[in-house]
């Protein structure tokens, strides 16, 4: 069994990464990359050479290519100690055309071309565009740069290897004094007196590697960070995983004591402190509060995360669906061709045939008439706003469950073992609950992990219609704003969930049905 599961998991992982590869090909190679500028006002206002350069720079940010300017190259040489400051300042600016370059500059211009062309880059020089004989046109400054598309293989390998980062005491390059980890039983964030174990690092990216607080699941870690891909437009600069899991809503301030001893009411979460080099020197606010450069903190917010909202609504809907769908399906099968079966069938036809958009709007309209809130509000503490989204999600699943459970039970009703049980004198109730239901429920049980994990993903239409700040819309928003990092990250997340759901479903099924075995021995 274990061997089989390991093989299944490895198999699943391979197909997940193939999916990520396919998605990368689709968005990076097949899609027209000029589309990202469709709604870009900066791009629209730029002109001439500046526009071209902006295009390449944005393509680099969106992950299409690597892009190096001549100035970057000269600064790199300077940082490596190959040239001195005087040479740098004399060669860093190039002439309006290549004929105007000074001999020394021309030498480095040629070096730049040689260096990057040997690495497979395309090198491009844009001559200055003149408005008059002496005046350069707006944005027409001369440009010199090299660019190279990232090949799929490197892109995929970089992505996969960068998925997890383990924090270590050599993560910060700057001088931070003595590097090391300290274990304390009295977390300084809580005043240093209450019992709260924590591991604090110096030289690590995060200050707190392990800590305890009052929010679920109480023990937290910053040692392992998951990077699904950085967002550029949806949630600029933030990782997809963080976008999905970070709390939203208004700040919840509390009285906290900063490392410097300053006490004030703030929503800062000191446990999330991340190293920012030189931050105290430039900011008075930070130097007043912190004693080291671990100054970048998250804020504590009142609402759930995107995934949190989706999951709360989704999981209640799933629970409700099984609670109602299973008994209704059984009732339909037991009273086949009676009134309840006919009513149930009408409901199922309605749910399957009518476009989901139509009945969600119908529920919204009916709910609105009944006085239920039809839009979601993160600031409100009322629980009534959850009612309509949950109902909209639960009703179709109820219909689906009823349909399949009825089908499976009716199929079982004609089986020989049922006839035998009946001839043995068992009552109909016993036959249904002891024999038929047990067999008919197996495929239903197989689907439970998928529906529970599916709740994490969220629902596209429901969340849009009721304006829920959930995770369901993340993919569509990312597609609409060409946020490649988010698209890839969300795809990986979806694919992982669906592979896990299938494996869990099989395991669960083999647990409830002793006839199903995945170990090779039984076969």
């Amino acid at each position, binding site marked *: 069994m274990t061997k089989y599961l390991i093989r299944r998991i490895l198999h699943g992982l391979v*197909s997940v990464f193939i*999916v990520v590869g396919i*998605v990368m090909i689709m968005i990076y190679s097949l*899609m027209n990359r000029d589309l990202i500028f469709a709604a870009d006002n900066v791009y629209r206002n730029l002109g001439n050479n500046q526009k071209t350069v902006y295009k390449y720079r944005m393509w680099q940010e969106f992950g299409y290519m690597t892009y190096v300017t001549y100035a970057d190259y000269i600064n790199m040489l300077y940082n490596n100690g190959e040239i001195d400051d005087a040479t740098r300042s004399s060669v860093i600016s190039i002439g309006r055309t290549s004929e105007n370059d000074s001999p020394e500059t021309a030498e480095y211009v040629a070096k730049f071309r040689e260096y990057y062309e040997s690495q497979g880059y395309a090198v491009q020089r844009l001559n200055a565009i003149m408005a008059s004989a002496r005046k350069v046109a707006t944005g027409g400054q001369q440009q010199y740069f090299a660019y190279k598309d990232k090949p799929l293989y490197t892109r995929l390998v970089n992505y996969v290897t960068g998925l997890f980062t383990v924090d270590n005491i050599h993560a910060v390059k700057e001088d931070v004094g003595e590097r090391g980890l300290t274990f304390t039983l009295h977390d300084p964030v809580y005043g240093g007196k209450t019992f709260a174990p924590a591991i604090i690092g110096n030289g690590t990216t995060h200050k707190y590697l392990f800590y305890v607080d009052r929010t679920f699941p109480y023990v937290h870690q910053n040692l392992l960070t998951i990077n699904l891909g950085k967002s550029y437009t949806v949630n600029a600069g933030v990782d997809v995983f963080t976008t999905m899991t970070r709390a939203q809503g208004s700040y919840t301030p509390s009285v906290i004591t900063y490392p410097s001893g300053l006490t004030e009411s703030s929503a800062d979460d000191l446990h999330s402190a991340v190293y920012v080099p030189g931050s105290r020197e430039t900011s008075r606010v930070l130097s007043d509060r912190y004693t080291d450069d671990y100054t970048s903190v998250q804020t504590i917010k009142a609402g759930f995360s995107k995934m949190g909202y989706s999951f709360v609504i989704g999981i209640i809907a799933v629970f409700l669906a099984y609670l109602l769908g299973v008994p209704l399906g059984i009732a339909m099968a037991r009273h086949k061709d009676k009134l309840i079966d006919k009513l149930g069938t009408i409901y199922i*036809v309605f749910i*399957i*045939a009518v476009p989901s958009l139509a009945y969600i709007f119908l529920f919204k309209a009916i709910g609105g008439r009944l006085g239920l809130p039809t839009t979601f509000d993160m600031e409100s503490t009322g629980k009534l706003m959850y009612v309509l989204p949950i109902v909209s999600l639960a009703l179709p699943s109820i219909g689906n469950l009823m349909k399949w459970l009825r089908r499976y039970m009716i199929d079982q009703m004609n089986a020989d073992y049922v006839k035998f049980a009946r001839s043995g004198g068992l009552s109909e109730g016993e036959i249904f609950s002891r024999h038929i239901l047990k067999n008919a429920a197996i495929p239903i049980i197989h689907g439970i992990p998928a529906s529970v994990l599916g709740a994490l993903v969220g629902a596209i239409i429901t969340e849009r219609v009721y304006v829920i700040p959930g995770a369901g819309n993340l993919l*569509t928003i990312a597609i609409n704003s060409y946020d490649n990092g988010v698209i890839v990250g969300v795809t990986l997340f*979806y694919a992982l969930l669906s*592979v896990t759901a299938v494996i869990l479903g099989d395991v669960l099924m083999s647990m409830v049905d002793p006839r199903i075995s995945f170990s090779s021995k039984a076969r």
Partner: protein
Amino acid sequence: MNTTLSADDLARIEGMSDAELFSHISHDDLESEKITAPRYSYWRSVFRVFFRKKINIIILAILLFVILFTYIYPAVSHYDRFANLMDASAKHLGPTKAMEKFGANIHWILGSGASGQSTFDAIWNGARISISLALVCAAINMTLGVLIGAVWGFSKKVDMVMTEVYNIVGNVPYILLISVLVLIFSPSFWTMVFALTVTGWIAIAYFIRTQVIIIRDRDYNLVSRCLGTPITRIATKNILPFMTSVIVTYIAVEIPSYISYEVFLAYIGMGLSDMSLGRLIYEAESAMVTPGWGFEFWSPVVLASIITVALYVTGQNLGDASDPRTHM
């Protein structure tokens, strides 16, 4: 023969000789091999069972009416979406107001929309696009799905490859695939067809493959194979008849699902550029909450629902009727 002879007939026959009563028929080897049985035509039986239920006749009539109307009405109504664009007083009118303004004719029984266009004309135009899309997609996907599924079910080598392909393609988010294709090309009708069919057939093929595997190894097929029946004949004569009801039932779910899907895609802003039903719903979404504008929003929703329900119920019942076990 169960015709009872009357007394008169008996009296007439009594006086006849054998030669008068019987005529001699020559022996025929071919004729003697024939087995007499009541005439059975599969499709005639299907329709006999289908039309036995009165509700089916009603729904089929509704469906035929809707489809005919969808294709004939836009052709004769000369709908111009922007005809009243400049007339500010023509926009967002309820049915009664629109008919007061433009006169009581069929165009205005559902009021007017955001650019003063007739809602009634708009929804039938939209329905034409949506139904065409659903029919074309269903035709392509079902043909590919059934053919590939049959091969997939028969060949063990193909099975291994295709199962992997299925596992991988099944994990690529469908919305992503469609939106990328729509972005690469323009969101035209045929792009949409391509996007919905490029991987759409694989689920059908998988379903057919499972059905084929179930029937493939039944005893009568093993016998047939031992007797040397070629595989194509087994596929077309032994297996296909068994699958007819399954395929028809599948089509019944498939066609309405494309209409629903088109509505869904239009709603999330990735649909057609033509004014299909989905696009009408998408554009009229704000009208739902505005008092007095309800007709703009609910008309396409209700029409889409009527079409999908009628298609679904007809298909399901036709699927039931095409199961030979119901022909008794």
